[in-house]
């Protein structure tokens, strides 16, 4: 079956970003001031371990960014016809998870649905019981007898596969300074991967949601949305916050007044309302121009980008205020005065003297903001102005969990899965940023 690649707007941005990163690394590969901190990050146990975890997330996100549509049988006049459903490379990999949809909720590793239904027995009698799942544990003849043995066997094999893969990787880090923590993280990652490969095709490892979709699949698909919102919003916030914040602090006077008025005004409007209004405007624009979007995926994608832009445009004030205060302090320091005495240009003073000395603040608040943004997406989805309801995201998962937690018995796995994936992501990002900050600080102790 042939296919046609599709390039969504966000894919394009990701490609540009990726190209910039690759080009940057290529250009700076011999630059010692760039390589030394990088080597140092990777040499630290925590740095290497968190880089691995982040790498796994980024890989999932990138795989999910290669989109295509499948080709359908040719139309009556022989013209090519394509499916309206945009799939990604990750979808292709996860086809078994994606296609094996149950009727409704089922718990992790369940073989039966979570709620009783009226069933018609072979003898025609109607009974209320938990029906068997269509896919989860369908290969078992007698679920009560065989379940544990089957899970342990498959899980054991999967874990064994992970350990073997780990041993094969052994020469890679044998002489690396990062040592044990990295090896341990790699082991855990590979074992988890092995378990999932062995078990996920036969069971719903993290259960299913209201419409019977596999929660593991939803979680993996949410990674791209989370990363995208975090990264793109950050890209909008950074230039605004750094540029305006440092300029306000350094130049003072009229410039400072103007920038302060701007962010005070922005801050005086309740944030959620401002975002809601902006999102609604965008939404109306999208809905009045359906001809601009070839597929539903293109529409949800543009809505996501708009959300990032809006979050970024309203979210720079906190960091800007922090940087303004820091720049106010720094501009009086004597090394800045000395640079002025040399007649160094203002732009250069900002770039060489102020910016490097506020980078630690930028890095810390960015990582905190990153987790905040993933959470903000959940809040906004709750209000109904977040990402498109059809888009799979942590926000929508948590939003759905709101009703599930009110059920009796409680459906906890969707929330737990979203929490687990976000927790690992945010923790890894935090720890990684810590190591990067230490490595960039020339005063830090060097190993």
């Amino acid at each position, binding site marked *: 079956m042939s296919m046609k690649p599709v390039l969504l707007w966000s894919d394009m941005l990701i490609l540009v970003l990726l190209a910039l990163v690759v080009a940057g690394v290529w250009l700076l590969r011999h630059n010692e001031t760039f390589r030394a901190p990088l080597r140092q990050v990777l040499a630290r146990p925590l740095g290497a371990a968190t880089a691995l975890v982040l790498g796994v997330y980024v890989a999932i996100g990138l795989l999910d960014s290669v989109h295509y549509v499948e080709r359908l049988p040719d139309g009556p006049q022989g013209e090519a016809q394509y499916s309206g459903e945009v799939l990604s490379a990750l979808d292709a990999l996860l086809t078994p998870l994606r296609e094996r949809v149950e009727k409704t909720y089922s718990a992790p590793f369940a073989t039966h649905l979570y709620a009783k239904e009226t069933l018609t027995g072979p003898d025609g009698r109607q009974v209320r019981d938990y029906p068997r799942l269509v896919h989860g544990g369908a290969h078992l003849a007698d679920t009560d007898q065989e379940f544990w043995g089957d899970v342990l066997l498959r899980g054991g094999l999967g874990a064994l596969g992970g350990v073997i893969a780990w041993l094969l990787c052994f020469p890679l880090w044998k002489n690396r300074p990062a040592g044990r923590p990295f090896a341990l993280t790699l082991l855990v990652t590979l074992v988890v991967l092995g378990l999932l490969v062995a078990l996920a095709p036969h069971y719903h490892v993290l259960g299913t949601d209201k419409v019977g979709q596999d929660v593991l699949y939803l979680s993996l698909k949410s990674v791209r949305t989370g990363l995208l919102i975090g990264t793109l919003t950050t890209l909008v916030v950074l230039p605004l916050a750094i540029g305006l914040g440092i300029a306000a602090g350094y130049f003072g006077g009229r410039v400072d007044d103007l920038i302060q008025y701007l962010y005070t005004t922005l801050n005086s409007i309740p944030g959620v309302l401002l975002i809601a209004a902006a999102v609604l405007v965008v939404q109306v624009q999208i809905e009045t121009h359906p001809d601009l979007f070839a597929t539903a995926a293109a529409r949800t994608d543009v809505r996501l980008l708009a959300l990032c832009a809006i979050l970024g445009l309203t979210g720079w004030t906190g960091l800007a205020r922090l940087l303004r205060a820091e720049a106010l302090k720094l501009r009086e*320091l*004597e*090394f800045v*005065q*000395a*640079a002025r*005495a040399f007649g160094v240009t203002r732009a250069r003073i900002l770039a060489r003297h102020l910016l490097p*000395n506020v980078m630690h603040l930028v890095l810390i608040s960015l990582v905190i903001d990153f987790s905040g943004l993933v959470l903000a997406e959940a809040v906004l989805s709750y209000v109904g102005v977040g990402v498109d309801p059809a888009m799979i995201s942590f926000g929508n998962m948590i939003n759905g969990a709101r009703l599930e937690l009110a059920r009796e018995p409680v459906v906890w796995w969707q929330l737990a899965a979203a929490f687990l994936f976000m927790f690992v992501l945010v923790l890894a990002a935090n720890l990684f940023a810590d190591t990067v900050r230490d490595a960039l600080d020339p005063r830090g102790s060097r190993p």
Partner: protein
Amino acid sequence: MSLTVKDLRVEIRAGGRTLTPVEGVDLVVGRDQCLALLGESGCGKSMTALALMRLLPEGGRVAAGRVELSREGAGVEDLLAQPESAMGQVRGGQLAMIFQEPQTSLNPVMTVAEQIGETLAAHRALTGVAARSEAGRLLEAVGLGTDKLDAYPFQLSGGQRQRALIAMMLAGEPEVLIADEPTTALDVTIQAQILKLLQDLRRERGMGLLLITHDLDVARDMTRGPDDRVAVMYAGQIVESAPGQALQAEPRHPYTQKLFAVLPRLERRGQRLDSLPGRVPVLDGSSAGCRFAERCPQVFERCRQEVPGFHGVAEGHWVRCHLADPEAASPADSQGRGVESAGENPPRPPFGKGGSEAGTPILAIDDLSVHFPIRKGLLKRTVGQVKAVDGVSLALAAGETLALVGESGCGKTTLARAVLRLIEPTGGEVRLAGEPLGGLRGEALRRKRAQMQIVFQDPFSSLNPRMGVGDILAEGMAALLPDLDRAGRARRTAELLDQVGLPADAAGRYPHEFSGGQRQRIAIARALAVRPKLLILDEPTSALDVSVQAQILNLLSDLRREHGLAYLFITHNLAVVSYLADRVAVMRGGKIVESGPVEQVLTRPRTDYTKLLLDSVPGQVLPDK
């Protein structure tokens, strides 16, 4: 009553290793006695004081020793054996401590009366009216009126704050007062007042005074009494302990001798100051012999192998040095004592041209004023002006050194920045080599900037911590010497590092890897990079130890001789002025009150203010008038 410290050892655990900033310290402070604990930064003197008060920082602990407080009728108690709950009565009640920084040792949101009242309530159970009248009495004792009772710290000047703090410490009627650099942050005239106050108070009350200082002259002034002693600390140990007079007359330890020899003095004009190379060793217990061996000019074999004992050389005079060991014939006897080493430098003719009559002055300041508007209200109307610099005229000839002397807030730093056009002057004119700077903009101003540069006071904030030393030096060249290409800049960087006496590999390192003195050398090299004719030195040595100060002063006089640089030397330290400057201008309240050749101003001052300044200098290093 006396405070006795025996064999005190303090350990600090930091980053996986144990440092011993204080080791084997013995001290006695008796009634009405002043003990000056003298030493350069990092020698462990403050750590000793904190250990006495049991206020050591996180990770620090007293590993050995006793701190005994004996009182008539109360016997002897070991403070280190007391439970923490009992220390509350000791701190403030029997031992009180005054800190260096009057800005931060008072609580900004409490009035003076409230803060004194806290001590009174804790130690003498006085509250209400009784406490207030006692607080008033204490304020009068320290020379503040009772009208300051309801003042907040921000309403007091630095000297008044230090007085209020002393009153607070006296409130508990302590038997021993520990003063940790009590006057370092103060101006010289205020310093003289506070030191006199401390002397008077200890006489009146019979207090013991443990004065911690880095200033030899302050130590000398405070230990003129027959019972008073000076203990010199180096690298965590007391290396010499003697009666104040005896130590001044004949220092016996090579380190103490060096400390005296590196001081700038009028009579040392034209000579190189003696220097003390090297750094204080890391105190991780790895050194086998004498801790001063690495820097000692009279070092010999035994110093590196054997820890020297504390030998008595005269009545009440002990020295921790093998040279003073009466049982061993030391090789130094044949070498002679280190005091003479200053004489090895043949005296050179005084620097400078002595007068400014020849040619156009390199810098001419004519009626310069800098006024800062005071703005109030919503529309920021200007309601008044602070005249930081008010009609100053000065001239500086090429190769000449003009010292600008004044107390903090007199406008000397503002003047320097206005000359450099870092602050726009409100009026008057600055001419550099005959050309007015006033109207210059953009490129023309940048070209002029290559001719004058500035070196700042604090070597820690004057270098960007995120730039390598090579980049720091190259920055000015890139901006002001566009003819130099990358290779040319690198060559000049190496040349500059050599000139200021730094190793060539310094270019690849970051400022934090250097000590204060080395950082100041980097700052000087940065200023020299663009080949200026005039250097403005804004208190370049006041943040440095005396031994490092001597190195920097030597460097400055070398550079002046080699490059014919003119210096505008801003300082409050008259000893440095007398050593280095050709002419002096005394500044007060934004105006120049007196100026003239250095010998004339320092020996025959014409104005009362200059006389007051000279009289306040501790140690009276200047020749008698």
